[in-house]
């Protein structure tokens, strides 16, 4: 079903191969316009972050008048690809990229978003890039204002020309009409409803007369259903008007509504480029998720899953106000000795659950640990109740980066549980028992195989994987009955990944109940007893690890009805 993306250059550009895959494009002077000629072509784009490949030779094209949908799980490389395309500085700062971008058949390389925009690329951002204190027209025309020569500019140059406000308004009106937005062009952006902001962004991209390709990065993520429908209509209109659109989204139904082609990215590679007429949502979901490498640690599932022991943690109607990861009424139970996985796409609220239980963000609902209610919003109470947490934000929340490994490991136990202290009548003035701390740290370093120069090494100097081991060691030092681990393997190398998963399994065998939140579904499926998939702040489905790939994919896209 996967149609190979045509590689090559339309309109009379000759492609020749010289040596080991080096492609030189020679544009001849003859120009043959063709309707299907790609406006934009990416060839074998590859990118590494600190040695980890995140894009492994991605090629795709976008032709005028088409809506090319780009789908993939978080971390599949979509954002990186768009950052490269748009000349974001982060790409250059992290060592540039390999491969080629062709715009109208000519090689292009953008060092800044300004260059990309000047060349005819536009981007509708996921988070709004608008100035709230400026009017709609001022936002749309920002830095491209039509100007008139005035008295001052005659003396002091172009910078002081007068704004042609009438033309600004007229242009903006036209652009707003094109996207079907009837608001006043001089209204302040600050007062507009969220749904309108997205359309203002699009109007801005449309207004740039030179825009040839517009990237829509999850434009419907914050829109209501009717707004989203309107948005899709606008996209279709724009494509009909001759724009090439790259459409990034997680919502499969939208893709099938508007896309003329679908490219599925997984682990930095193009898995397939599909024709929506000849494929199904289930198939796309399957391709996105990918088959788990192996369902390992099956013994874990068998020893505990079946006899369904009493719940150690019951969560009822939990709502958590975690910015970007809102939880909106989650009910779940963690059984004794179980590993419960929480999966789902970024922004859907999966990480909010553990943060809410630990009291790190304002939350409502009820949480009970072994039948006893746990006050929400009080991390100390959660720790005292036997919970430990490994945060998804390792460097921000999980570690004291400038302190030693050993202090990081014992701090919570020392502070909340009063351990590793010498005797003294006043509990607050008890001296830390350095010997005990050091011995414990050394034991943990051995157990977790932390690669370091010693327990006194500064945590900042450790690699990501070893930092994660320190986080895990801190949680283990608390000797919890329930361990909440978020993104245990994010951004760490393969060796550390294996050791971290091993240790989690060891803890599980030692009787600790675990909730593992992860974006890596494959991993969850390899060690969890059950996996809850979160969508739009709620549990979309609770699935066994051996459920079909499509079931996971559809639950993640919030279409569990299709799955059943």
């Amino acid at each position, binding site marked *: 079903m996967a149609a190979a993306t045509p590689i090559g250059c339309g309109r009379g550009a000759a492609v020749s191969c010289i040596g080991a895959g080096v492609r030189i494009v020679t544009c001849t002077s003859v120009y043959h316009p063709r309707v299907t000629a790609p406006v934009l072509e990416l060839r074998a784009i590859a990118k590494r972050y600190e040695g980890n490949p995140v894009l492994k030779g991605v090629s795709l094209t976008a032709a005028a008048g088409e809506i090319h949908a780009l789908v993939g799980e978080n971390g599949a490389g979509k954002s990186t690809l768009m950052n490269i395309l748009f000349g974001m500085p982060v790409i250059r700062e992290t060592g540039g990229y390999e491969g080629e971008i062709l715009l109208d058949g000519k090689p292009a390389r953008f060092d800044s978003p300004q260059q990309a925009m000047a060349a005819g690329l536009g981007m509708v951002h996921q988070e709004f890039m608008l100035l709230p204190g400026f009017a709609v027209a001022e936002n749309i025309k920002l830095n491209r204002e039509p100007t008139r020569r005035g008295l001052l500019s005659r003396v002091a140059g172009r910078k002081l020309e007068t704004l042609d406000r009438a033309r600004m308004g007229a242009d903006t009106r036209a652009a707003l009409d094109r996207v079907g937005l009837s608001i006043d062009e001089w209204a302040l952006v600050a007062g507009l409803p969220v749904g309108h902001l997205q359309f203002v962004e699009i109007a801005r991209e449309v207004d740039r007369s030179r825009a040839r390709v517009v990237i829509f990065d999850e434009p419907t993520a914050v829109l209501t259903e009717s707004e989203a429908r309107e948005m899709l209509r606008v996209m279709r209109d724009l494509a009909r008007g001759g724009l090439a659109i790259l459409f990034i989204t997680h919502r499969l139904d939208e893709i099938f509504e508007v896309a003329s082609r679908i490219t599925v990215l997984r682990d930095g590679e193009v898995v397939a480029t599909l024709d929506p007429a000849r494929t199904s949502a289930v198939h796309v979901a399957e391709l996105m998720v990918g088959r788990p490498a192996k369902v390992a640690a099956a013994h874990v599932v068998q020893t505990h899953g079946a006899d369904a022991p009493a719940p150690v943690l019951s969560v009822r109607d939990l709502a958590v106000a975690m910015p970007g990861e809102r939880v909106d009424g989650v009910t779940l139970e963690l059984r004794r000795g179980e590993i419960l996985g929480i999966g789902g796409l970024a922004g859907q609220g999966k990480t909010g659950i553990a943060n809410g239980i630990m009291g790190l963000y304002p939350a409502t609902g009820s949480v009970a640990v072994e039948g006893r209610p746990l006050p929400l919003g009080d991390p100390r109470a959660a*720790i005292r109740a036997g919970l430990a947490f490994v945060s998804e934000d390792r460097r921000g929340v999980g570690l004291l*980066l400038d302190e030693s490994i050993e202090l990081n490991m014992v701090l919570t136990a020392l502070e909340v549980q009063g351990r590793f202290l010498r005797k003294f009548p006043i509990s607050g003035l*008890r001296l830390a028992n350095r010997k005990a701390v050091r011995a414990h740290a050394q034991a943990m370093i051995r157990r977790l195989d932390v690669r370091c120069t010693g327990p006194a090494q500064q945590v900042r*100097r450790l690699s990501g994987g070893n930092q994660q081991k320190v986080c895990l060691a801190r949680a283990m030092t608390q000797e919890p009955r329930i361990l909440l681990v978020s993104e245990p393997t994010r951004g760490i190398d393969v060796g550390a990944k294996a050791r971290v998963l091993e240790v989690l399994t060891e803890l599980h065998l030692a009787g600790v109940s675990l909730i593992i939140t992860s974006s890596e579904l494959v991993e969850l499926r390899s060690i969890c007893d059950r996996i809850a998939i979160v969508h739009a702040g709620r549990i979309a489905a609770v699935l066994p690890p051996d459920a079909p790939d499509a079931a996971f994919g559809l639950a993640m896209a919030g279409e569990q009805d299709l799955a059943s």
Partner: protein
Amino acid sequence: MSGPADPVTGGAGEDAGGARGGAPGGPPAPPADASPPPGPVSRVRALARAAGVPRLVIGFFLIVLFAIAVATRMDVPGLLTDSLARIARNGLLVLALLPAIRGGLGLNFGLPLGIVCGLTGCVVSLNAGMKGWAGLGAAALIGLLLSIPVGWGYGAILNRTRGQEMMVGTYLGFAAVSGMSIFWLLAPFHNPQLVWALGGIGLRTTLSLSGAYDKLLDRFLAFEIAGISVPTGTLLLFAGFCALTALFFRTRWGITIAAARANPRFARAAGISYTATRTQAAILSTALGALGIVVFAQSYGFVQLYTAPLYMAFPAVACLLIGGATVSNATVLHVIVGTVLFQSILTVALPVTSQVVQGDISETARLVIQNGMILYALTRREKR
């Protein structure tokens, strides 16, 4: 910023203190350091890195001053005596800055808040006619008791103005000193030795402690060696408080305060309230300031009221910074090294420079060093 041999206190790293001054937060001893051929250049560099450039420069300056003093046959033991007295006198005021930095409040320019508490203690005990150890003890005790609510309020204000602690502290200190000036004038003190002779109300600007507890601590166990008299009691008290402070930051409470500063979000996840630890740090700093001024007054022999405390935070801050502290990290070693260097310079510079240049530039030198050092520390970016 952890000292390698300091397991628990981390940033406390007393043993590593001065060694880190030159490169705060920098990598601990980069491998290039250990390269085999230690030529004279690399040896100087290593020394510069270990001690920090400012300390080397000021240390060198100090040595030059002493050399000139010896060469011009000045009274060197006298200079050393004066230096020791000043070090002992100012030590606690410098130490008072430490809890604020460790608690995340930055350089405590609001030190005058603690100072006016201590001064009130002195005045009350003097007004009651208390003498000797009882008078000194009462002054310290009253100062400490006052400093707790004052420090709490100071902390509360700093928590509302997070990120501008130093600015807010400076102006709060100024305001408090000015407010207290009114208090000194109007407060119902009637001891004729304290109030203006004319009118009989309002405290004098400078109150003598002779006959009360003038130099009481300085003279305690004092001795003379090679013509240098040592203010043993005050030095011992300073040393004792240094030790206590170092120990404090190894206790559960102290570690909590420092950890909350190091990463407030980590602290929150560990059930620690950053707001509370900051308030605690403000109280500790204010209390030490109150104690510090009582010791200062005792050694100086006078209680200075009205605008005298206005700029007292600045030399103390300069001392700490010269010792190698930064806005976000300081150790007891920084306190000691800084106090010794800065106070010795002040003592030696005046007579030596007047000998050499036939004029008084020592006050100018003091201001240049003091304010230059503060400026230097503020402009220095913490390298990560």
